[in-house]
């Protein structure tokens, strides 16, 4: 295979991988639409209300928009942090989603500029937020639930 052919094949593979990765969240949200459920703890059907609270999926992220070019470097950095440094230090984060995931979510939702400002806000309000935020059980421990929609409700409407 020529150099040109190799490059084209690599290019094609990269495109397919990106499309596959972009479609993953859609598949996940489709799977959420039906399945055994119950809102009564007295009559659980495999998934109880408590289970649902264990890993809440923020509604504003189920149909996540594709990030723009400007957001990509920030998302790469955050992805790098989550894969390398995060596993070592994220266990200490008392919030859900964690600050790095919150940053990813806010950049996806509002773009890099507002996303970064909201991330700075999140890092400042962790302490006082714990007085009011509801607790959710995630990964075997309780964390304070503070999704993006809790901090943009006064200017952003779905």
């Amino acid at each position, binding site marked *: 295979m020529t150099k040109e052919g190799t490059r084209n094949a690599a290019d094609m593979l990269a495109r397919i991988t990106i499309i596959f990765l972009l479609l993953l969240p859609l598949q996940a949200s489709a799977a959420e639409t039906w399945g055994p459920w*119950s*809102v*009564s703890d007295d009559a659980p*059907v495999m998934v109880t209300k408590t289970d649902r609270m264990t890993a809440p999926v923020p509604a504003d992220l189920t149909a996540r928009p594709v990030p723009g070019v400007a957001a990509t470097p920030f998302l790469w950095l955050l992805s790098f942090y989550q894969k390398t440094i995060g596993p070592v230090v994220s266990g200490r984060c008392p919030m859900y989603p964690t600050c790095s995931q919150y940053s990813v979510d806010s950049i996806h939702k509002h773009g890099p500029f507002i996303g970064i*400002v909201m991330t700075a806000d999140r890092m*400042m309000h962790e*302490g*006082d937020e714990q007085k009011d935020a509801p607790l959710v059980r995630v990964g075997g421990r309780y964390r304070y639930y503070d999704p993006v929609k809790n901090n943009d409700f006064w200017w952003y409407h779905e």
Partner: protein
Amino acid sequence: MVLFLLFLVCRAAYGAEMPAEKMMGFADSLFAQGDYYRAITEYERVLYHNAAGPLAKQARFQIANCYFKGDRLDQALERFRAMNREYANEETGRKAYYMIGEVYYQKRDYSRAIDVYTQFIESYPGDEQVDAARIRIGWAYLRQGKWREASEEFRKLPPDSPLHVQAEGLAEGSETYPGIPTKSPALAGGLSAILPGAGQLYVNRPGDALVSFLLNGAFIWATVEAFHHDNNVTGGILLFFESGWYLGNIYNAVNGANKYNRRMEKQFLDGVQDKYSVSYLYDGHGGSMVAFTMRF
């Protein structure tokens, strides 16, 4: 002989179909337990065996009700709409229309809920749920912060209505809405723009204030020092980070003010709800009842 007897037993068991009423009773029992997912299956069973029977309409209504009670609001909306279209001139269609308003209310789409309830009152002025619809309209206005409209709506209940006393109480409660304590988001943001952390102190978030003050103070100091010592690249990098902290500090103060206002409004609404409690109950046959309690 044994085979023949087995055949008879099996045939008898096969032939003993459960009557529709019993199936419905079982489905209602699951519904009463709050097991809406399995109740839907049982109501579907009633429909499958008695599609043209007298219980079919009730089963369909209950399926929609299961989705509603089970917090599957989009599916509930779809079902109630279909029932309203199909039985437009019957009681079931009327009840389904009322329930469309309930679904919008639960979805917190208060404008649409008001539209549906208003249309319901205009279309069916003699219906027993008209007063309940008016109460709901009042609440929908109140949740939007439109306390004058809410009060007007509560006062529209006629004196002979069993809900009149509670509606008067709700009207009076609505009129105290302007007394809810608030913090100005603009002032909070302005204070933090002048001195990082000041806006957070104004909105009663001392922890945020301290973090904001220290972070911004440290980064501003480091940036100034870097430029002062001709470390322009370091200074530029620090300035980039400080810009994020500074804007985040202003956002934090404005966000804190809005959260404070939301919390105060929720406390107020919970207080009114608690004092003039209105419970919307649904029986197992698609009918609704309104229950009131008053606390002094």
